[in-house]
C-alpha cells in the first residue's frame, strides 16, 4: 500500500472531522491484528429482519438476535419496504440490548461497531446505519460499514472455523445470485451474476403463481419434496458460452406459461410436480455453473451462502457433486443462511483488520456493488 496516500487521507480526517474511510498504515494494522481479542457489535437491517449480534475475532458468536417480520409481511405477499422500515425503528434498540445482554457484555466491552450499509432497502438500511453511527459517536468505538453479501459469504467462517480463502462461493438469496471467487479475506471477484431475477425472487414469484404464498423459498422446497422433479421439462437458461452468469426470468415465464396453458385446457395442475420441476431447473443451473467455475479456477473448496442456500435440494446436489470430485463443501446452518447480524460481525472483523473505518457520514447504499468496492480502502484511483 502507498504510505503517502494513507498519510494524506489521515490528514483530511483531522481537517474535515469526517471522512468515508481512512487507512491505517501496515505497522499499526499488524499491531492490532496480533495479540488482542476483537469483540464486535454488529447490526443488520437491510430487509425484513432486525438483527444484532456480538462476535469475537470474526468466528466466535457470543450472541445472535434476530427479530423477524415475516409474519407481518405474509399478509401482503412480500416485503413492504415502508412497513419493514417502521418495524426496524421499533425493534432496533431492543435487539442491540438483547445482543449485549446475551453476550453478558456492556457497550464498554465492545471494540468495534459493524453495520450493513448496503445493498438492500434504503429505508430499512438507514435505521441500522443511524443507530450504529449514534453508538459509535457516543462511545468513540470505530465504525465499520459492511457489505451485506460479504456478510453472507462470511457466515461460512462462523460455521466452519477451519475454512480459509481462497474458495468458490455461490451466493443465492431473494435479492442476489452471485458466483464469487473469494481470493483472500475481504477480497472478492464476481465471476458470474444474474442478468435478471435473483434465484430467490424466482422462487417467490413461482410460489405466488402456484398459490403457495410468501415466503416462497421454504414453501417451494417443502412442496417439491412431495413432487416429481422430472414431471415437467422446464428450460435450463443458457447465457453466452464461457459466461457464468445466470438468468431466471425465462424459467419463471416458462412456469407461468405452463400454468396458463393447463388452465386453458381445463387440466388440473399438480402443484408439487411444478414446484419440484422448477426447483430442479434452478438447482441444475446453479450447480453446473459452480462446478464449472471451480474447475476453471482450480478451486477445491466450495461454499454456499444466502437464503436460497438453505434449500435442501440445492445443498444435497452440491454436496453430491463435490463428493464426486473430491472437493470440500461448506454450508452455513439455516439460521446463518437467513439475514443475521453474526455474519456482519464476521465480515466486519476482516474489514477492520484490513484497516477499513467508516466516517460519521456513512450512508446507506441500496445498490452497493460487491466486486470493485475494495478499491476504496486500498487507495487506488
Amino acid at each position, binding site marked *: 500500500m502507498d504510505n503517502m496516500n494513507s498519510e494524506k487521507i489521515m490528514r483530511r480526517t483531522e481537517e474535515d472531522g469526517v471522512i468515508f474511510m481512512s487507512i491505517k498504515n501496515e505497522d499499526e494494522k499488524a499491531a492490532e491484528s496480533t495479540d488482542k481479542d476483537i469483540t464486535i457489535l454488529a447490526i443488520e437491517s437491510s430487509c425484513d429482519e432486525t438483527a444484532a449480534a456480538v462476535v469475537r475475532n470474526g468466528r466466535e458468536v457470543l450472541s445472535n438476535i434476530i427479530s423477524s417480520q415475516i409474519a407481518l409481511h405474509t399478509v401482503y405477499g412480500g416485503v413492504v419496504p*415502508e412497513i419493514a422500515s417502521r418495524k426496524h425503528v*421499533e425493534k*432496533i434498540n431492543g435487539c442491540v440490548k438483547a445482543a449485549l445482554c446475551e453476550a453478558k457484555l456492556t457497550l464498554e466491552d465492545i471494540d468495534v461497531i459493524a453495520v450493513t450499509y448496503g445493498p438492500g432497502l434504503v429505508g430499512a438500511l*438507514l435505521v441500522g446505519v443511524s443507530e450504529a453511527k*449514534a453508538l459509535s459517536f*457516543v462511545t468513540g468505538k470505530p465504525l465499520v460499514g459492511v457489505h451485506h453479501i460479504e456478510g453472507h459469504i462470511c457466515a461460512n467462517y462462523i460455521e466452519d472455523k477451519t475454512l480459509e480463502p481462497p474458495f468458490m462461493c455461490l451466493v443465492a438469496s431473494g435479492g442476489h445470485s452471485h458466483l464469487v471467487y473469494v481470493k483472500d479475506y475481504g477480497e472478492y471477484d464476481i465471476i458470474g451474476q444474474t442478468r435478471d431475477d435473483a434465484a430467490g425472487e424466482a422462487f417467490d414469484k413461482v410460489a405466488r403463481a402456484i398459490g403457495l404464498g410468501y415466503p416462497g423459498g421454504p414453501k417451494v422446497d417443502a412442496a417439491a419434496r412431495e413432487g416429481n422433479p422430472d414431471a415437467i421439462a422446464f428450460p435450463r437458461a443458457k447465457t453466452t458460452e464461457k459466461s457464468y452468469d445466470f438468468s431466471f426470468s425465462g424459467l419463471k415465464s416458462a412456469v407461468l406459461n405452463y400454468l396458463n396453458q393447463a388452465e386453458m385446457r381445463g387440466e388440473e395442475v399438480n402443484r408439487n410436480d411444478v414446484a419440484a420441476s422448477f426447483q430442479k431447473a434452478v438447482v441444475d443451473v446453479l450447480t453446473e455453473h459452480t462446478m464449472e467455475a471451480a474447475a476453471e479456477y482450480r478451486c477445491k473448496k466450495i461454499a454456499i451462502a444466502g437464503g436460497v442456500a438453505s434449500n435442501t435440494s440445492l445443498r444435497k446436489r452440491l454436496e453430491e457433486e463435490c463428493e464426486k470430485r473430491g472437493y470440500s463443501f461448506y454450508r452455513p446452518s439455516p439460521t446463518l443462511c437467513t439475514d443475521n447480524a453474526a455474519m456482519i460481525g464476521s465480515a466486519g472483523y476482516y474489514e477492520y483488520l484490513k484497516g477499513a473505518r467508516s*466516517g460519521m457520514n456513512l*450512508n446507506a447504499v441500496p445498490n452497493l456493488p460487491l466486486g470493485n468496492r475494495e478499491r476504496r480502502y486500498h487507495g487506488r484511483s
Partner: protein
Amino acid sequence: MKILALDTSGLVCTVAVTEDDRLLSEFSIQHKITHSELLLPMMEQIKNRISLDLNTIDAVAVSAGPGSFTGLRIGCATAKGLCLAMNKPMVAVPTLDAMAYQFYGSEYVICPMMDARRNQVYTGVYIFVPEKENEKHREIFFSMKTIKAQSAMSVNDIAEELNNIGKTVILLGDGIPVYRDKLEELLKVNYILVPAHMNRQRASALAALATIYLREGKTVDADSFSPEYLRASQAEREAAEKAAGKKETKADSGKNGRKSGIASPIYIRDLKAEDITAAAEIEKACLGAEAWTEKQLLEAATRDDTVYLVAEVSGEVAGLCGVRNISGEGEVTNVSVSESSRGKGIAFEMLSKLLLRGKAIGCESFTLEVRGENKAARGLYEKLGFVNEGTRPGFYESPKDDAIIYWKRNNTND
C-alpha cells in the same frame, strides 16, 4: 438542564444543544445532501466546537413527527442510539408544535404547514396565551395553546379552519411555497409569510420546548418509541381500503403520542378543538337544557378575550371551565365536572388556574352565577374567595331556582 435536540423531519437537518435558557450551539443545513450524511457529522462538529461532554446531557430531544418518513426514521434511530449509549431519557416533541414554538409571545395565530403530498399538508394551529405567576409581578410569560392538534389534512380544510378562526395568521413550513397560490385564493383572513430565520424547523425551538417537557416529566421510552407518521403506509392503506370496501379510511388518530398527566392524575390544560365533543357532553350532563353546544364552546374557546381550560384524568376530559374578559370583569361562563370525577377537588384546581390565567388576560375582578340549591358549588366558590352580592329570584327553570350572583373583587384576599 442540558438538552441535545435534533430534527430531520423536513428539508432542514438541524441540531442544537441548550442549557436551560442558554443556546450553546445550533447548526442547520438545508442543502441537497441527505440527512443521513449530515446529522452525525454536524453533531460531531458541535461536540468539538463547544467541547461537549456527552455525559452532561440530561436528555435527547427528537422531532416526533409528522414529516418525511425516511427523515423521521433517521432522526429517531439516531436519537434511540444516542439514548441507548448515553443511558439518558428521550423527549419526543411533535414536529409542528416545535415549529410553532419559534413564535413564542406572538399575538397572531400560528399555522405551520409541511407538504404531505397528495394535496395534503401536515398542519396544526397554535396561539400564545399570556400569563402571570402573580399579579404583583411585571413579568409576563406565555404558554402555547393548541387550537388544532397536528394532523394530515387537505389545504382546503386547513384554509377553512383558519377562516373560521377569523384572525391574522402566521404561515410557515415547507408546505407554504408549494401551496402559496392556493392559500392566497382560499384564505379570507390576513396572513403573514415569515423570513428565512423562522420559516422552517429549528432545533433550538425544539430544545426549548423539550426543556419544558422534561421539567414536567414528559419523557418517552427510547427503546419502544416510534415516530408519529400520521399516515399508514401505502400497502396498509390499500389493504384497509380493500377490507372496508373502498370506504375512506383515515390514519390512526387514536394514538397521538401525547402522554399527559404522568406526574399527577389530574392535568389541567387548555381546551383544544379535539376536546370539544367530550366537553359538550360534560356540559350537557351537568346543566341539561342550559348547557352550551359544541359550536358555542368552540366559538368561545378560540376568542382572544377568553381562557378555556379542561381537566384531564387518565387521558379523558373530566371537566371544563372558562372565563371571558368583559372590560376588566371576568365572567366565569362555564364550570362543569363529569359525575364520575366529582369529589376529587378537580373544580377547585381548575378554577384556581382559571383565575390566574384570567388575570393574565386583564380580568381585574371575576363574577359568576349559580343555582341557589347547588350547595356544593356555592361552598367551592366561597372557598375561592367569591362573595355573594345578590340574587336574581326565579332565574333558572326546571326546577325553578334563584340565581346567586357571586363576585371576587380585586380587593378581596387571594
